[in-house]
């Protein structure tokens, strides 16, 4: 046997499947989706001898029915892809219960290898497992491992590549056997079913009443009527005779068989002491301390990832800036009046990418912490504690993780948030979560909030930030409920039932692998999308641009500015060195460079002196003009700089005004004016569709922030041109809109990936647009009519939203479960 071998890992959740997967494949793995469904497919490779093994990590399941997507996926994979071996990873300390799945795998006639993982845990619990007896009873190879300490890799790899022996144990279903035989015989007489699945397996599944198996048989059987008739008869008569339907009997026999094998192979040498998990949960799930600790965990996530990570980000920002300036040095330099197009595009591109690179430390910390929580086993506890609240709103306990990743307070990213929705077993709740996670506050929106809060609510900063941080959750919850009651009505729901796994010390390797995996996905997905959309947005902001006659006027003004400058410095030593526009431009560029160098050396007197020294050696007259406030040349140059900046800003504004996006911004005014948005705000919002951080940049450009040294509030508050003045009420409406605004393009694409439907992607864009606009209009128009200021409107809206959430939460839920 050489070349590719396909091997699957199957097992119950928390059996250590992923650990074994990592152990076998190392870093050679990638993640994909199973076709058409949102279940994650992990594939990895390893080589042994001349065998190259492709290893697939199937989703963790307790059983192989067709009720959940995970189980269907696992089952279809084993039946459809016919792997040359299936490794059944089992938590050895829970062998008895794990065998339930093992039997079902055996029933599917796949070459099985039983991997007794967590053998160390079993030992410490005082269990001794008779491997030979187990092997004999099951009829398949048994290999032990301690995934955490990396033990058992060699033996597993060996077993996988060894040609596998005959089929293993077959469960004896006792009184159901005659019926099974009769059904199997009839199925074997259906030629079209041959090769699709083992007949005995199909017979068992049909008697169980498994919907997928029924569909398969109905569609594949040559004479379905006959099969159906027999099936009904057998089910009926069995239920009559043994007072329970076959499906219950089947499950019961499996458990009995597991019990019997367990008794035969497990010896308990010493009684397990009251274990750690139990004691820990007494605190961690306690009525009072549980929620308190959970809040502490939330706070810690926020503090470490957003705050401390933010500091780290602030540390690397200057270096990113330096790198950008360094790269920009290779581009054609700007003229006095304008930048070459290439330079402008490249700078915009680099700025967009840098805006994302800055977040990497924060995300790395966040992802690592979450991976630790997952590895430790705390996530199910969060789900346990929060399920009641989430369920009220049509969500699920497992919606916790996506919401945290998305930025439940502030500072997340909807992309990993949407991706992590896979863990929600309930389809309806999963879709509702996917569609509402983008309403959370991502890190990129935060900069925009801070800008507005600083400008308009300087006295109430903390309150305003609290408003914006919590209003999103307050909105997302009732929306989720409304979605489940309307567009998601009738979607498949699933029981909550889940295992509360034992706590484990996190394994650094596993944590690292998971965090790196998430961060690379983030980089791959977000970066590529943002980079390409950034270019598109740039084009939309650039063209058609300022008309030629207008440009001539600007050029004339530039000429005047330069002439005035030259006249002002006449007679100074500088005048001999700069005589025309090109030289003046070069001087201005050098001045900027000097400023940047000084800023880079800020706080370090020695380095700062060195910078001065360097420029002095180059030209003392230049240095004087840059730095000597009393010099005539300094004042003239400073004035010129300001005039040029004003001119640039005007041109930029005119260009945006005359761009495609500007045109769109104008076109939307009839709708957006109810929310108090003029065309400039519209443009800023539209341009932020690529990435939220560009809203801040476009906004600053349009309102001329950072130009004449005017404060943000002042320059926005000023009525200029055709734009109106911005008030605090505007700011509130704007922040609210930003919070509820449709997700960025990267998120939208993730919604598409996670739901597999274009329809949901479009919906995830459309409904927040309407919602955001509605909420902003309510605040602006409604608040204006009542004469509220921004601060009052904020809290009036908050009260409304809270009341609405409460009301929706009180709508009684219809139980999807029915009695039999």
């Amino acid at each position, binding site marked *: 046997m050489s070349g590719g071998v396909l091997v699957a890992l199957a097992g119950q959740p928390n059996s250590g499947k992923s650990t074994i997967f990592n152990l076998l494949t190392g870093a050679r793995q990638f993640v994909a989706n199973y076709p058409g469904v949102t279940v994650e497919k992990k594939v990895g490779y390893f080589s042994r001898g001349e065998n190259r093994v492709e290893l697939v990590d199937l989703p963790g399941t*307790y*059983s192989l*029915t067709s*009720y959940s997507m995970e189980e269907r996926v696992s089952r279809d994979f084993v039946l459809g892809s016919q792997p040359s071996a299936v490794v059944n990873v089992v938590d050895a300390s*829970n062998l*008895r*219960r794990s065998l*339930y799945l093992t039997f079902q795998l055996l029933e599917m006639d796949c070459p099985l290898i039983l991997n007794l993982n967590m053998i160390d845990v079993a030992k410490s619990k005082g269990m001794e497992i008779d491997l030979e007896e187990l092997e004999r009873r099951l009829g398949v190879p048994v290999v032990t491992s301690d995934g955490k300490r990396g033990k058992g890799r060699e033996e597993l790899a060996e077993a996988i590549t060894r040609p596998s022996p005959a089929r293993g144990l077959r469960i004896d279903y006792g009184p159901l056997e005659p019926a099974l035989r009769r059904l199997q015989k009839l199925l074997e007489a259906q030629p079209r079913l041959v090769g699709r699945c083992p007949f005995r397996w199909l017979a068992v599944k049909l008697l169980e*009443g498994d919907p997928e198996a029924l569909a398969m048989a109905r569609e594949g059987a040559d004479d379905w009527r006959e099969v159906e008739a027999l099936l009904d008869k057998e089910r009926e008569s069995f239920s009559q005779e043994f007072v329970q*339907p076959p*499906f*219950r009997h089947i*499950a*019961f026999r499996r*458990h009995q068989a597991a019990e019997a094998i367990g008794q035969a192979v497990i010896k308990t040498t010493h009684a397990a002491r009251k274990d750690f*998990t139990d004691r820990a*949960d007494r605190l961690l*799930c*306690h*009525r*009072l301390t*549980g*929620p308190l600790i959970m809040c502490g965990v939330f706070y810690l996530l926020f503090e470490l990832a957003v705050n401390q990570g933010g500091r780290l980000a602030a540390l690397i920002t200057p270096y990113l800036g330096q790198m950008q300036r360094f790269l920009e040095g290779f581009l054609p330099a700007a003229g006095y009046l304008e930048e070459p197009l290439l330079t402008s595009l490249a700078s915009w591109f680099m700025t967009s990418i840098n805006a994302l690179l800055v977040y990497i430390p924060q995300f790395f910390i966040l992802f690592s912490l979450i991976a630790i929580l997952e590895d430790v086993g705390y996530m*199910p506890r969060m789900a*346990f*504690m929060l*399920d*009641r*609240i989430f*369920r009220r709103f049509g969500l699920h*306990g497992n919606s916790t993780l996506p919401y945290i990743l998305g930025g439940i307070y502030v500072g997340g990213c909807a992309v990993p948030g949407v991706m992590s929705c896979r863990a929600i077993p309930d389809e309806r709740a999963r879709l509702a979560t996917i569609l509402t996670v983008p309403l959370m506050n991502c890190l990129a929106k935060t900069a925009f909030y801070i800008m507005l809060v600083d400008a308009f609510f300087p006295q109430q900063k903390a309150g305003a930030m609290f408003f914006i941080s919590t209003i999103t959750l307050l909105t997302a919850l009732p929306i989720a409920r409304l979605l489940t009651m309307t567009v998601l009505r009738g979607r498949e729901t*699933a*029981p*909550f*039932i*889940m*295992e*509360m796994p034992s706590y484990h010390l996190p394994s650094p390797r596993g944590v690292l692998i998971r965090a790196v995996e998430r961060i690379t996905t983030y980089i791959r997905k977000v970066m590529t999308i943002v980079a390409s959309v950034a270019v598109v947005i740039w084009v939309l902001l650039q063209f058609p641009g300022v008309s030629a006659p207008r440009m001539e006027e600007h050029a004339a003004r530039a000429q005047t500015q330069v002439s005035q400058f030259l006249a002002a410095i006449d007679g100074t030593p500088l005048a001999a060195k700069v005589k025309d526009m090109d030289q003046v431009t070069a001087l201005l560029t050098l001045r900027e460079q000097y400023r940047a160098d000084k800023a880079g050396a800020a706080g370090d007197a020695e380095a700062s002196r060195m910078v001065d020294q360097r420029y002095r050696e180059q030209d003392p007259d230049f240095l004087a003009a840059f730095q000597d406030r009393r010099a005539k040349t300094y004042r003239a140059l400073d004035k010129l700089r300001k005039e040029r900046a004003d001119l640039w800003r005007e041109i930029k504004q005119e260009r945006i005004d005359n761009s495609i996006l500007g045109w769109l911004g104008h076109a939307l005014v009839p709708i957006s004016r109810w929310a108090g948005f003029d065309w400039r705000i519209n443009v800023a919002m539209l341009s932020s569709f690529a990435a939220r951080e560009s809203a801040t940049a476009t906004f600053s450009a349009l309102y001329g922030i950072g130009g004449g040294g005017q404060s943000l509030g002042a320059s926005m508050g000023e009525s200029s041109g055709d734009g109106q003045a911005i008030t605090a009420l505007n700011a509130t409406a704007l922040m609210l809109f930003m919070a509820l605004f449709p997700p960025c393009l990267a998120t939208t694409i993730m919604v598409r990936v996670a739901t597999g439907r274009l329809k949901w992607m479009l919906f995830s864009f459309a409904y927040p647009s309407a919602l955001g606009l509605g909420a902003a209009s309510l605040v602006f128009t409604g608040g204006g009519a009542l004469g509220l200021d921004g601060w009052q409107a904020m809290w009036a809206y908050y009260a409304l939203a809270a009341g609405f959430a409460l009301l929706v939460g009180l709508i009684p839920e219809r*139980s999807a*479960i*029915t*009695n*039999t």
Partner: protein
Amino acid sequence: MTLDILRPGSQCRVLGLTTAGNLGQRLMDLGFHPGVELRVIRNAPLLDPLEVEMLGYCISLRHNEASFVEVEHL
């Protein structure tokens, strides 16, 4: 009586299930079989779901799901 009305700390034995379909199958897959003994460990801080221990491991389920498990007090 049904599992959902038991208080934390009580021990009981499963008599049967009164639901089929998805929930019934899930319950059985996790081991809710006639004769199995289980112990209610705790309710969640907001009272729902509850956590039970059986066959050496812990499972959480919602009260409305537990109401389909017939049990007898031990």
